């Protein structure tokens, strides 16, 4: 029943998309009718998914696809959880999009509507797919539709390059996934997930499958070193699309990895967990360090997505580690942390991306160096964004903190592992996670502060307008998600239990009432966000009232002190570059920096610094060069000479005859 509802929603999305093409250029109709309708469908999807968490898994076979392998769909709790996120978050983004798309965006609005809704539908079907063919079809459709969204504004060469890189990496990743399924089916020739689940592979084959899954899903999830497409593609897309890509699409990678690791492979090995942990932490650290030095607001958020997905993968690694040593409750805790982070990242990252969209529309500016002071012109956007930024920084009492709290808790229990070497890693890993979280705070202060606070760095910023009603609705919905995840972790955990139990076979132990999050035991660790919020707000309110009551509420407004320097202007504020400078200095080995410094006698001094990812130079460019060299060698075989061509035929003939004669 919930499955039918969900398939109906998917069909509705597809219909909306097709209808969008029919009214290709009628912007108002598309924006005010199609997108809100898509959003409502998303809400319905979320409701159906939440409802289905209480049902046993249901499946259905549609008579399309390959004749020997029609599309199988199955709705179990893992899929339902991700569908819930998909529905809820996409609803917010769709509402926002209703007010976002304007004319002159390069691609006609109707086409955008089609791409957008096909993207949504394919994501839903990826989560539902229960056979390898259906999964791959949906997976690649998802990549393809989002590719079209990325290059919506295809006139910019930079965007085209981003789109190319994105689709290429997506395709390479998909090949790895396909190979992974090939290993998983263990020569039975049956590619239904039911069969993959039933196979018991040798440790070697299982490891191979796991590695392929890590590569394939890692490429989608921005795992180092396959992350290079992400900071290019996410900023290039229109903001609602970026929001969907960062907020939801990346999560399908997590879904896939969880599906393969916990559902298909029954006995994980400990080093898988270690590998995932290492890769995840590396991505997290690299992501946040790069985020801190970005000067483009959407690139900053894209790198921040790498960081968050890195944390998610690290958590998954920990869950694998626990599962490998058969520490089921611990695995459940780690997995819960992972899923929680997935949910909260989906909320806050979509929120932040749509916020950048609102800023972009109001100012036509993406570069942090040319923004500033927008809180005065766009208060709605600013205050809602603040909530998202604080969540992203992992501050209590919001959603991001809960997941980080759970993650750190699960690390603290790692010393129970029966492997001394792994135990040694715990402090290092926990420290790295703490560092990443703190750096995320740094990045978010930079993000919010430079865009919304201070004085406008450009004249035109004072013309910026606040978001419209649709945009506000969308943003408020997403912000509500951040708040709910932050304040009601106990209730969310109750939902998550239905997801983790089938995967690792254990529930979290005790629950200390509805207001206190205590996944193990209240004496060991507890966190009560509502109480916390009440505490803070109580203190604040009391202080405020006391100050007003005891003293006064007078206020005087004057121009700020100019430090005795009358020619001071808004451009002299600290820039985003400046904000990133300490990070550049401390984490110098991470970057490949090119700097032009002026010398003392320059009449027109210029300072230029460009920071790029050294992985390009270490990994990707050499691969491209190798292929180029091979291609040149191959090209030399074909120099236009007919005699040479005849010689090839002749030699081939001789060779084949020799082979035949043997």
């Amino acid at each position: 029943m919930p499955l039918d509802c969900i398939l109906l929603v998917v069909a509705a999305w597809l219909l909306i998309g097709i209808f969008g093409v029919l009214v290709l250029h009628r912007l108002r109709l598309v924006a005010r009718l199609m997108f809100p309708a898509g959003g409502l469908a998303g809400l319905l999807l979320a409701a159906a998914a939440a409802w289905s968490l209480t049902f046993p898994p249901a499946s259905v076979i549609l008579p399309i696809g390959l004749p020997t392998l029609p599309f199988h769909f199955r709705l179990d709790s893992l899929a339902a959880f991700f569908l819930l996120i998909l529905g809820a978050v996409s609803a917010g983004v769709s509402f926002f999009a209703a007010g976002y798309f304007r004319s002159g965006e390069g691609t006609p609005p109707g086409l955008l509507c089609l791409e957008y809704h096909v993207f949504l539908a394919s994501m839903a079907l990826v989560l539902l797919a229960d056979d390898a063919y259906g999964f791959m079809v949906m997976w690649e459709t998802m990549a393809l539709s989002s590719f079209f969204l990325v290059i919506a504004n295809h006139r910019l060469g930079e965007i085209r390059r981003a789109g190319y890189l994105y689709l290429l990496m997506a395709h390479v990743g998909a090949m790895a996934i396909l190979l992974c399924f090939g290993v998983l089916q263990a020569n039975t020739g049956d590619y239904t997930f039911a069969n993959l689940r039933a196979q018991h592979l040798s440790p070697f084959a299982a490891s191979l499958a796991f590695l392929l899954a890590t590569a394939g899903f890692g490429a989608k999830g921005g795992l180092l070193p396959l992350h290079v497409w992400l900071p290019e593609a996410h900023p290039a897309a229109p903001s609602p699309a970026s929001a969907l890509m960062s907020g939801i699409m990346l999560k399908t990678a997590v879904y896939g990895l969880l599906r393969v690791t916990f559902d298909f492979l029954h006995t994980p090995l400990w080093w898988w967990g270690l590998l995932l942990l290492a890769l995840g932490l590396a991505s997290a650290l690299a992501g946040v360090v790069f985020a801190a030095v970005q000067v483009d607001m959407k690139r900053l958020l894209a790198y921040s997505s790498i960081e968050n997905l890195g944390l998610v993968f690290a958590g998954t690694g920990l869950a694998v580690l626990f599962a490998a040593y058969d520490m089921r409750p611990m695995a459940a805790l780690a997995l819960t942390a992972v899923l929680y982070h997935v949910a909260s990242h989906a909320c806050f990252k979509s929120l932040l991306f749509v916020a950048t969209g609102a800023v972009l529309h109001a100012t036509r500016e993406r570069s942090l160096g040319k923004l500033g002071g927008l809180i005065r012109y766009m208060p709605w956007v600013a205050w809602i964004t603040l909530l998202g930024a604080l969540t992203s920084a992992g501050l209590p009492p919001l959603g991001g903190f809960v997941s980080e709290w759970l993650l750190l808790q699960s690390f603290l229990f790692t010393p129970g592992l029966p492997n001394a070497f792994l135990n040694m890693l715990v402090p290092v890993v926990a420290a790295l996670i703490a560092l990443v979280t703190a750096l995320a705070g740094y990045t978010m202060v930079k993000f919010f502060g430079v865009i919304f606070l201070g004085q406008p760095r450009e004249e035109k910023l004072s013309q910026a307008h606040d978001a419209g009603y649709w945009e506000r609705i969308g943003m408020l919905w997403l912000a509500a998600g951040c708040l709910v995840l932050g304040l009601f972790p106990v209730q969310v955990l109750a939902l998550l239990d239905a997801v983790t139990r089938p995967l690792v076979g254990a529930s979290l132990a005790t629950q200390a009432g509805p207001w206190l999050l205590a996944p193990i035991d209240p004496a060991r660790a507890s966190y009560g966000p509502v109480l916390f919020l009440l505490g803070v707000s109580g203190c604040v309110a009391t202080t405020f009232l006391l100050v007003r009551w005891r003293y006064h509420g007078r206020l005087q407004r004057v121009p700020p002190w100019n430090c005795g320097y009358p020619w001071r202007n808004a451009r002299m504020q600290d820039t985003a570059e400046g904000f990133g400078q300490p990070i550049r200095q401390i984490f110098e080995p991470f970057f490949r920096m090119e700097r032009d410094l002026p010398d003392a006698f320059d009449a027109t001094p210029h300072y230029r610094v460009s920071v790029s990812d050294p992985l390009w130079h270490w990994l990707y460019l050499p691969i491209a060069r190798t292929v180029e060299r091979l291609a040149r060698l191959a090209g030399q075989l074909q120099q236009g000479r007919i005699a040479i061509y005849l010689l090839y035929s002749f030699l081939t003939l001789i060779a084949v005859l020799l082979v035949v004669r043997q």
Partner: protein
Amino acid sequence: MNTGLLSQLLEVLLALWLAPLLTGWVNQWRAWLQNKSAPSLLQPYRKLHKLFHKEPVLAEHASPFYRMAPYLVFGAMALACAIIPSLSTDLPLSPAADAIALVGLFALARVFLSLAAMDVGTAFGTLGARRDMLIGFLAEPALLMVLFCASLLSQSTSLTTIVDQFAHRQFAIHPSLALAGVAFILVSLAENARIPVDNPATHLELTMVHEALLLEYSGRHLALLEWAASLKLFAYACAGLALFFPWGVADARSPEVLLLALPVLMGKLAVSGALLALLESVSAKMRIFRVPEFLASAFLLAVMGMLINILLGA
């Protein structure tokens, strides 16, 4: 429960009341150690009172955020003091926030303060915000690691449980805690804007961090922020004392110890305040770019502490 509520209330009020005193005490000691004539012990109270009376002067384009931040920072610090078991471990608010949440609370305050400093858009505010966040992103994980050292020993991240265990357990020497203790001192110096990281008594643009953040604040807002800074120092001091010298803290089983706990705490605070002043007097302020190294060593010390904890199986 009643005693719990009582001790909780007592703790908050005590913190609010004692925090400026601790600041004054440290200042006094510093002056003595530097052969200056010391200000009165009550000087901080007078200053706060004066500031509260004054009319705040606000930059004309400052946003509501700017006015909101001092209250929030103050509230956060007050809550921090409330959840650190300084007098008793029987605190009803304590389950709401464990060690990780405490660090999160400090981070929350820091983020708000930094953002507020950026709001006016003068060069100094942003500069201060950047430096403060720089210190923060290294100090916070280090603090967390220090707390984790204790957590590993007590198998809990709940502050009350940790202190409970440390206070009512047979005395044992934990080498990991020694390392963590050193790390904690380094972190506290950085977090509370003390020499060698920052100088609370200077407004020199090349060096100031915390003062740069407050530069545009005045009147009651400044008063709240100053008070919050005192509270922070107080909270750190209490946290350090609770972790490393947990004796004399009351618990639910023996509420009567609460009466004894207060003088014990005052004594411990007096000693640590004097030591802080001594430490500040004997060290020199360092360049801002050496601060990451300073904090990184704190961070590493704390991690080493955890490692030793696991290596020695303690």
